[in-house]
């Protein structure tokens, strides 16, 4: 370092990427120290770079090993890393197995992405006019062969792995009949992604559609229930009216029977009782008789069971048996209405 002339010192500094100012008596020492420092740093950097080359592969392998759940000897892997890449098609040592697993995972990753994108496209407008979300196995194989440089054997190995793995990989393998489960690779007819990848706009519009549909369904249900309620109220009101009509009828009948009895007491009638049908015909005009039949029958029933002042009897009148009502109490005592 000491033997360097000013010019050489300048050149050395520039070679290391530093632009020095004028090298004078006062600055010479400073720049010499700078050169020393820069040289040390450069040496360190070169060493780092050599180590860096091997590191990414190492990290990837490390992650792979962890994911596979297999323990590994990092030192061994690092030693293997120092070897040149070899053809791993037929070898079965640990390093090659790791590499194969890596290739398999890469293939699966590509396949997953491809299926997800296709399924997403299908869901969102289907610009490529796909027939269904399920991609035929030949198409998928072709795509994978284009994207990665793997053979069909590797593709089948990937499919087998998916079949044998009991974790959810996100890829569904479907057979000819779309609903049955496949158990062997040759039965697989098409592949479908379990998680389609859709754009944000598409997702938003789908979400909106779903929300609107749900709201509409909710309102329809509400309207339906409300209609049901109205129907029920109407029926209930009708029943109430009928009941009211019945009580009206009962009241009228009681009046008639009582009046008849009073007339009989005053010798205006022949018998103390009056025929039921006779009462009916008195109270209900002929045109309403069919319409009021229900009300009448209920009234008759009511009187038979709930009115103690009127007795329902069967008498022989003019040679015929007929049902009659007879007032059973003295008129002045038992009047509840008048």
């Amino acid at each position, binding site marked *: 370092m000491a033997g360097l002339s000013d010019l050489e010192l300048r050149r050395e500094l520039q070679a290391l990427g530093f*632009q*020095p*100012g*004028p090298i*004078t008596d*006062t*600055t010479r*020492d*400073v*720049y010499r*120290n*700078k050169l020393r420092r820069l040289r040390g740093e450069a040496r360190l950097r070169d060493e780092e770079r050599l180590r860096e080359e091997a590191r990414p592969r190492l990290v990837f392998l490390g992650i792979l090993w962890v994911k596979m759940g297999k323990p590994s000897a990092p030192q061994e892997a690092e030693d293997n890393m120092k070897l040149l890449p070899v053809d791993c098609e037929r070898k079965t040592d640990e390093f090659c197995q790791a590499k194969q697993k890596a290739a398999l995972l890469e293939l699966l990753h590509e396949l997953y992405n491809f299926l997800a994108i296709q399924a997403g496209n299908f869901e969102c407008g289907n610009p490529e006019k796909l027939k269904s979300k399920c991609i035929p196995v030949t198409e998928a194989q072709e795509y994978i062969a284009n994207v990665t440089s793997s053979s069909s054997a590797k593709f089948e190995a990937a499919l087998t792995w998916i079949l044998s793995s009991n974790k959810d990989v996100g890829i569904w393998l479907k057979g000819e009949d779309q609903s049955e489960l496949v158990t062997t690779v040759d039965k697989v007819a098409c592949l479908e992604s379990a998680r389609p990848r859709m754009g944000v706009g598409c997702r938003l519009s789908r979400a909106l559609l779903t929300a609107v549909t749900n709201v509409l369904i909710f309102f329809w249900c509400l309207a339906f229930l409300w209609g049901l309620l109205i129907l029920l109220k109407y029926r209930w009101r009708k029943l109430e009216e009928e009941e009211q009509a019945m009580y009206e009828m009962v009241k009228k009948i009681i009046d008639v029977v009582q009046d008849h009895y009073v007339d009989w007491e005053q010798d205006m009638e022949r018998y103390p009782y009056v025929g039921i049908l006779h009462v009916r015909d008195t109270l209900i005009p002929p045109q309403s008789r069919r319409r009021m039949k229900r009300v009448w029958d209920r009234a008759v029933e009511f009187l038979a069971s709930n009115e103690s002042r009127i007795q329902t009897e069967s008498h022989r009148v003019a040679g015929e048996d007929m049902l009659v009502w007879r007032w059973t109490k003295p008129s002045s005592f038992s009047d509840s209405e008048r």
Partner: protein
Amino acid sequence: MTTSQKHRDFVAEPMGEKPVGSLAGIGEVLGKKLEERGFDKVAYVVLGQFLVLKKDEDLFREWLKDTCGANAKQSRDCFGCLREWCDAFL
């Protein structure tokens, strides 16, 4: 980091013939040492060195340490002072 009164006084106006001791971080002892090395009585010579080193902080501070034995704080104060003066007046 607040600046000292010395710093503020120095950067407030062109340095003219101010002595080397008026630089922030340079006290009596350091000032004397600088004089011995030929960085005479005036501050502008130190400014000269600062500029020749192209205002590089590491180089200047290393130079100051080697020349007069300034510690880290003293060299930092001196560098900061000169740099601000240059920003204002150069």
